[in-house]
């Protein structure tokens, strides 16, 4: 087993991995940029080293600095978390060359899956069901028109090096194709430094369902059940659950076995996720493989009772999987809400700033993986994910009701968060019935949310009460009013709520 693991990440996932290290008796090493000195992962780690300025390229993406800290601290392994360097084959290679174990798949597996066209070619060979389309980059607009005519519109143009919706275009007719291709190419070039675009038949209103796999370095590969990830805003997952409301035992087994075939074809090791598109007839097609731990891994942990980060570390240290496929037992239902620092009343704009008040939920069926604390200043430089709230229940309705209860207990003051969005989704009749696809959330957000404001009277009374009971709010400059301050003068210090400009 490793003695010391460097965590090349920040935020909630760094805290998550540090906790796993502590549980396994392994020393944890955090790294941090200038703006993360006071972040939770630095507080929680056993050791912590500064790695540069806020810009990720100069800190969390800086391979040589991170390997420098690994050497300095004597770390024998690196956990990359998700994002940043997690799917960077060059980094995995550099770790290997530096004699530090990269906790994840090999650089070769990553490279195969990193190119969407190469992955398609390999999966085609392995007999994995694919969305009809090309497994090579498009040579020209004419070539694209030819393929599109064969598979039929609508089609989807995708960047071979892509991800996160960038370099992606939905095309409904031949007329749109040429300009869409050019747009996709230039966006892909800008975003990934690679303009290669391929074409797939567009699945109308698909679901996005993925299968967790785990493979040790001795040839054993298992699947751990699916995750339903169709609740997305702008191609970004917002809420995930397991099991999927539409997947039964038979479909789970078929999907799981194909996911294992995908992993084996890629000679995959460690934790990975095979993403599928599912059409309205429940046909599923390989979409891509994520060669890392997913943000949404906790829902799988709750329904299987396993700890994926423990298992990642054990596998990387050379251990065999401690169970077989038959031992995997799925029980209950789990749903994850990604709590972001963003403003639901203002088009989900990011909302960095200082957290002035934090009330966190707990109790039965509630897991909270958080990277924030009261008094912490959410930096503007990184992903706005603050925490994940995961609800478990005997069944789906109970998981939902527990999450709603916990969301109502959750309060993050000083910045805006998307907590209200989850109350809305979890209370929606279509969601409750399991009727949704990847377009669901964008459609829901086009409708006006019901505003329940019955307690204005109570708010009015409370405004007065605060003035009486807590009359001298500590000002930011540390100025302190004399205790003889009258309520009236304290009250008049309160400012009118400035109207924000309508920016939607």
């Amino acid at each position, binding site marked *: 087993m490793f003695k010391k693991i460097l965590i090349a990440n920040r935020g909630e996932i760094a805290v998550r991995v540090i906790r796993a290290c502590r549980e396994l008796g392994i020393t944890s090493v955090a790294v941090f940029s200038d703006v993360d000195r006071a972040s939770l992962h630095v507080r929680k780690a056993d050791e912590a080293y500064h790695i540069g300025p806020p810009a990720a390229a100069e800190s969390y993406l800086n391979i040589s600095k991170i390997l420098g800290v690994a050497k300095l601290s004597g770390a024998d392994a690196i956990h990359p978390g998700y994002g940043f360097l997690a799917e960077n084959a060059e980094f995995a290679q550099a770790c290997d060359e530096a004699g530090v174990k990269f906790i994840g798949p090999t650089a070769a597996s990553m490279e195969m899956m990193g190119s969407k066209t190469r992955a398609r070619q390999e999966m085609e060979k392995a007999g994995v069901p694919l969305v009809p389309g090309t497994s090579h980059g498009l040579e020209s607009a004419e070539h694209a028109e030819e393929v599109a005519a064969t598979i039929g519109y609508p089609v989807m143009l995708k960047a071979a090096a892509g991800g996160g919706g960038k370099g992606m275009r939905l095309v409904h007719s031949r007329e749109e194709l040429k300009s869409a291709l050019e747009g996709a190419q230039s966006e892909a070039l800008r975003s990934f430094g690679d303009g290669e675009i391929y074409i797939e038949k567009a699945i109308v209103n698909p679901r996005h369902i993925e299968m967790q796999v785990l493979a040790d370095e001795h040839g054993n590969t298992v699947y751990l059940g699916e995750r339903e990830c169709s609740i997305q805003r702008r191609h970004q997952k917002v809420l995930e659950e397991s099991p999927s409301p539409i997947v039964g035992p038979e479909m789970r087994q078929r999907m799981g076995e194909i996911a294992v075939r995908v992993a084996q074809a890629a000679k995959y090791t460690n934790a990975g996720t095979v993403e599928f598109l599912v059409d309205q007839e429940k046909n599923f097609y390989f979409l891509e493989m994520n060669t890392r731990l997913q943000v949404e891994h906790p829902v799988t942990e709750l329904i299987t009772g396993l700890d994926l980060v423990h298992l990642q570390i054990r596998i990387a240290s050379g251990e065999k999987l401690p169970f077989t496929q038959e031992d995997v037992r799925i029980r209950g239902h789990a749903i994850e809400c990604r709590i972001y620092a963003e403003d639901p009343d203002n088009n989900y704009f*990011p909302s960095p700033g200082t957290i002035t008040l934090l009330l966190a939920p707990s109790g039965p069926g509630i897991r909270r993986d958080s990277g924030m604390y009261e008094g912490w200043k959410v930096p503007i430089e990184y992903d706005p994910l603050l925490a994940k709230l995961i609800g478990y229940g005997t069944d789906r309705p109970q998981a939902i009701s527990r999450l709603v209860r916990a969301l109502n207990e959750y309060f993050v003051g000083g910045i805006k968060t998307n907590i209200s969005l989850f109350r809305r989704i979890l209370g929606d009749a279509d969601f409750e019935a399991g009727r949704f696809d990847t377009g669901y959330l964008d459609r829901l957000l086009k409708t006006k949310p019901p505003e329940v404001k019955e307690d204005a009277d109570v708010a009015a009374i409370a405004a007065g009460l605060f003035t009486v009971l807590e009359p001298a709010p500590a000002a930011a400059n540390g100025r302190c009013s004399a205790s003889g301050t009258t309520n009236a003068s304290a*009250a008049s210090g309160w400012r009118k709520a400035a109207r924000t400009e309508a920016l939607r």
Partner: protein
Amino acid sequence: MTYDVIIDGKSYRLQLDRTDGRWLCRLDGREVQMDAVLTRRDVLSVLVDGKAYEIKRERTATDLHLWVGSARYAAELRDPRSLRGRKDGAGGEKGPRKLIAPMPGKVVRLLVAEKAEVEAGQGVLVVEAMKMQNEIRSPKKGTVQKLVAAEGANVNAGDVLAIVE
């Protein structure tokens, strides 16, 4: 004590006194059976006719909000003896409108030039923060009078980015 309280734009006259550990409370003249205790900084427990409310106070440089359960109310409280006017010119559809940076970030792209005609809702510039690019749109149909922020500039929340007239 008497206070003028404005909640979500609506005015209330609140009388609040405490004698012998009991609250006397009148809202717009109506007596309210009420008990309250500050449980911790910025969190009140209020009982009104047996109903229990957990109320959170949220203050920023410019705003005061009260959360009753999960609902958020804009609050303003005035000493009624001060007689200054209530409207500080919130601005309507007429006249120039400012585009304000909703969060700190970096201006990565200008989408129109100065003096350009824009529709209501049309993107004027793009600000990047927390790995997301956000289009700042015109609040009204009109002419871009001024682009205050330049491409590449770092801006703070509340900075004026452009003016549309």
